[in-house]
């Protein structure tokens, strides 16, 4: 896992980009995400990991410091060790340029 990498869900259309890397396994819809996906996503979302991802939101895993940004939304939830990642509150800054 490297900062700047695009990671893809194997079970839904979710794509994230790594903002802060950590040595953990990130899953989406219960299945580990991959860098290269051959063909279309397939398979079932795991129960409880089907809350979906929102385009443009940041997701964090507090214990490891992992932070990713959703660059394509999907129906699966992001998780590490079965724990669903939380949406990081957006900092609303006034436009400066």
């Amino acid at each position: 896992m490297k900062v700047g990498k695009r990671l893809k869900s194997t079970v839904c259309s979710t794509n994230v980009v790594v903002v802060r890397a950590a040595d953990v396994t990130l899953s989406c819809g219960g299945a580990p995400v991959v860098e290269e996906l051959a063909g279309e996503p397939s398979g079932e979302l795991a129960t409880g990991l089907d809350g979906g991802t929102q385009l443009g939101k940041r997701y964090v895993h507090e214990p490891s410091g992992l932070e990713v940004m959703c660059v394509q939304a999907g129906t699966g939830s992001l998780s590490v060790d079965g724990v669903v990642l939380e949406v990081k509150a957006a900092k609303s800054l006034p436009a400066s340029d």
Partner: protein
Amino acid sequence: MSIIMLLTMAVELDGDRVAVTAGEEHLTYRDLLERSRALGAELSEQGAENVALLDLNTAAFPIALFGAAAAGVPLAPLNYRLADDRLSEAVARLSPVALFQGPGVSNQVAVGPADTLLPTGALLAAATAGPATADQGAVDDMADPESPAVLLFTSGTTGTPKIAVLRHRHLFSYVTSTVEFGHAGPEEAIMVSVPNYHIAGISSVLGSVFAGRRIVQLPSFSPEAWVETAARERITHAMVVPTMLGRILDVLEERGEKLPALRHLSYGGGRMPVPVVERAVGDLPHVDFVNAYGLTETSSTVTILGPEDHREAMASLDPAVRARLGSVGRPVPSIELEVRDHDGRVLGAGEVGEVFVRGEQVAGEYTSHKAVADDGWYATRDQGHLDADGFLFLRGRADDIIVRGGENISPEEVEDVLASHPAVAAAAVVGVPDLEWGERVEAVIVLEPGAADPSAELTAWVRERLRSTRVPSAVHVRPQLPFNETGKLLRRVVREELAKGGTSS
């Protein structure tokens, strides 16, 4: 991680929304992505290592910016106000380069055998030919985050200009940490009037794409065109540099135009006189004002004085709070900021030193060398201090500080006092080589229209208000002061002129 990802996300959100308006032309986010990818494909085939653009603010700029990124090469927007020989030198440093020149600029630039020079018309035509789809865009919007996205020539009035390097990760971090994705309403439109070879012209385009805010390109700035475009396009957001704002207010007052759609005006890129800010707030009471401080080397903004800060300062009777109208605000959350002395000691509130910043958006890098320390801190060369609440006040460039008999004197401090005299419209203060003191303080002033020369009484005027070491030993009257086109006072030019001597006062 690439700046194109900002665009593919905007397409994902709503590809049919208008992204860019340039004159009669409108591009949706999907159009912009398709054209950028088509240009990228053509540039890759061509094998240029850099793309350069010499153009007013037109639709070509965002296409060239994202198109270069699609080809994995950086875009270098060039300053069309430079003399032709200097532009030719700049182009030579980018070779092999694909240079695109817009119809609105008349420069005659020489290119080498490995380079191409094409009109932006060719860029736009090439970019419409491609059969690319947004779906394809989503899968190849990656670039090496380490690869350069933008090259910007510094203005350096003496010596060879440096070329600042901004990598994809710097710009991506800057935009995604300061802008909330897709939060702009469908009615929002930002006018970009800062030239595209200025960092704010670039970050404005990137940030607006990510926000989903329509970009209206103002080809080149005049206060009349700015006001007319703002009214016609129902502009809600705009960013201006100091020299623009006063002239815009003149036109607004003259025409009785209130710009009811305008709600957000940010300013930066140089020191804004407090009276101009006060006048702007008075003329446009429905508008939120934002003062931003940033540098090319930091991917733009590092501190912000927000709308609420402006309102508090305007309403306050506490001089310390009121003074914040002259501050550049507090660091954005993704930036660490320190003020340090010569020995690197971190200074406390009220102590003047050099401003240092650290954060993922900080590039601090040139093609010639890296200027960021190993621990990530970047020395801005700007002098300033923080107040007790963490608001930053700038006191000019470290290079402009006058050292008189071992004492450091900030030119702004003296300039502010001179400019507060009713007969003085503007002032520049510099150090002139002096056998006794090392440097002595001298001033150049511009008179208010019709005012009598107040030079004789200015010494007493300054002495009453500042320490005697600050009193200029000579005051020269000039018809105008040298500013660069983005409103920065060129003290270096004043200093060189006065150091040569033989100047009349």
